[in-house]
């Protein structure tokens, strides 16, 4: 009896961790895409999530049907992604990585500033897709929306994988990320590829934002913490490695939920970061980052 209560408890923590982790994983995936094509760590990635969510909320409030609002919101986020590339990243091509990071920080401050004027500073939610009545799985209560998020995550992953491996454009992105010089030589237009990754990342962010808002709520400044956690997830998995980003995100979410459930809710973020540090000390390039070998 006690054992089964324990299992239920652990199952509950797992669902919590996976739901939160899926959000981190998606943000991490957005980071990875852009990083692979351009070696830019885009700290404005969280703002794409926010734009998707907040735009949906406000468009729906303005009277648009929810599906239309969602599609428009994704488009808005994609416009932001493209604009970020066109007006801030492309003109700074060749700058130091750290200078590029500062540019994306500037962009995130700008987008937040814009959102607080266009939208408002309050918290908002969206209705869950299949109701709020939890489903009981093995004694653990799971919101249907959590399953939507996890399924959405899976669809995105598979879609991305198919796109990258099966389409010419996707392969061009892979080629450009492996060796931009060689890609240019074989006729791939690298700047277009980089722009495309910003587009895909912003799309990804917006979709995630729309999917999770029924669970997590949203506000104009929801992006900062997502960028922070997404960045940590990327590094946990190993930068530049899409499966690593997903793994890192899920593990980070699980570390937080199990940390909160089993050790201390006060220090759960600390626990997650200690795990991250421990992983990095054992594997300096993250879980799936491969071994470090100095080439001289």
């Amino acid at each position: 009896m006690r054992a089964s209560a324990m299992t239920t408890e652990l199952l509950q923590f797992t669902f919590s961790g996976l739901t939160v982790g899926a959000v981190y994983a998606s943000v991490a995936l957005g980071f990875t895409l852009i990083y692979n094509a351009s070696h830019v760590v885009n700290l404005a990635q969280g703002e794409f999530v926010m734009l998707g969510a907040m735009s949906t909320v406000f468009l729906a409030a303005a009277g648009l049907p929810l599906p239309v609002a969602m599609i428009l919101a994704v488009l808005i986020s994609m416009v932001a992604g493209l604009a970020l590339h066109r007006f801030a990243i492309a003109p700074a091509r060749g700058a130091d990585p750290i200078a590029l990071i500062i540019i994306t920080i500037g962009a995130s401050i700008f987008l937040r500033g814009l959102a607080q004027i266009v939208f408002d500073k309050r918290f908002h939610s969206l209705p869950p897709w299949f109701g709020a009545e939890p489903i009981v799985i093995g004694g653990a209560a799971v919101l249907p929306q959590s399953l939507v998020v996890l399924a959405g995550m899976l669809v995105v992953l598979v879609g991305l994988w198919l796109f990258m491996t099966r389409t010419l454009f996707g392969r061009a992105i892979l080629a450009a990320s492996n060796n931009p010089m060689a890609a240019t030589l074989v006729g791939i237009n690298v700047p277009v590829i980089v722009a495309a990754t910003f587009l895909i990342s912003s799309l990804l962010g917006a979709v995630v934002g729309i999917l999770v808002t029924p669970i997590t709520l949203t506000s104009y400044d929801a992006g900062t913490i997502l960028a922070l956690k997404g960045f940590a997830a990327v590094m946990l998995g190993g930068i530049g490695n899409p499966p690593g980003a997903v793994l890192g995100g899920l593990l980070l979410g699980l570390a937080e939920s199990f940390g909160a459930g089993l050790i201390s809710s006060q220090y759960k973020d600390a626990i997650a970061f200690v795990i991250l540090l421990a992983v990095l000390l054992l594997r300096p390039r993250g879980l799936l980052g491969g071994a470090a070998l100095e080439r001289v």
Partner: protein
Amino acid sequence: MVGRILGSVAIAATLVAGGWSGARAEEIRIGSVVSSTGPASLLGDPQKRTLEMLVEDINAKGGIKGNKLKLVLYDDGGDANAARTFATRLAEEDKVAVVIGGSTTGTTMAMAPVFEDAEIPFMSFAGAIQVIKPVRKWVFKTPHTDLMACEKIFTDLNARKLSKVAFLSGTDGFGKSMRDQCVAAAPKFGIEVVHEETYGPRDADMTPQLTNIKNKAGVQAIIIPGIGQGPAIGVRNYKQLAIAVPLYVSHGVASKEFIALAGEGAEGVRLPAAALLLGEKLAADDPQRPVVLDYTKAYEKKTGQPVSGFGGFAYDGFMIVAEAMKRAPSNKPAAIRDEIEKTKGFVGVDGIYNMSPQDHMGLDLSGFRMVEIRKGDWVAVP
């Protein structure tokens, strides 16, 4: 002494400035520093909107004793350091006669010494009791203290014959401060804190913490002290886990949108709240009813957003200062301060204020009402 000279210089400067701008009447500068962006923007934003609305309103009605008001408002982004700098700016550059604002305890405590030194009255919207205890000559505040919220909840628990509680408190200033006050006050009410969990202000899921509370034997009630999205998510997860014991949230969620955010889980949740929250539901003979309805109507018309308790703090703060300015023999900071301290029987949206040299808040527990969420609306618990 130096401060006093500076003060007179300030007034002189204001007079000269007024003369130059061609205005015959004196322009009274009212300073404000609120956290209208950043992690405390939930508090600061409605406060900023309220202050702007009220100043506009008073000026439209001819100002105070014929003097127009000028609001000098800065956003500290929730950063105590920025708040301190803006406080210095208000005192030194803007030469304000009185300061209203300081959204959090952290920013308020950072600013208080500046206004103490400059001898400018400072009406804060911070919750924690240390703002007014010990009493600082120039510092006042409008919100109920966290301790009072705890006492209100504990009284209700006593009435329901519940004594063993678990806390799920926010790690932000509000949640932490209220949790500390509650834990300290619990024994006095025969309340035993059997379990404690916390959540981060940006947490999107609290089921692990609530699972622990659910599995803890003997918990008879859960209290979630905090503001913003935290308590809303806590209430959702409480519903998700089908926890049976009663749930209390704090006065920090005091806004209609909380009910929408918390969803169905909010049914039956109780909280201590000011009259503002009840609005139309207040008894027809309730002295606060006209004030509450006036403010609610004006604010919602002006901003298109529902009123929140935080905006209410600003309303009361501003009105107390405005009343004091009407009574004061001059517009000097010292004169205004003295009149604020003499505030008696002022009916605000947060309660009825009776200040004194010993009490720079002037509220008692009667301002707080225990309300319960039923069918998507507040209902007063007798």
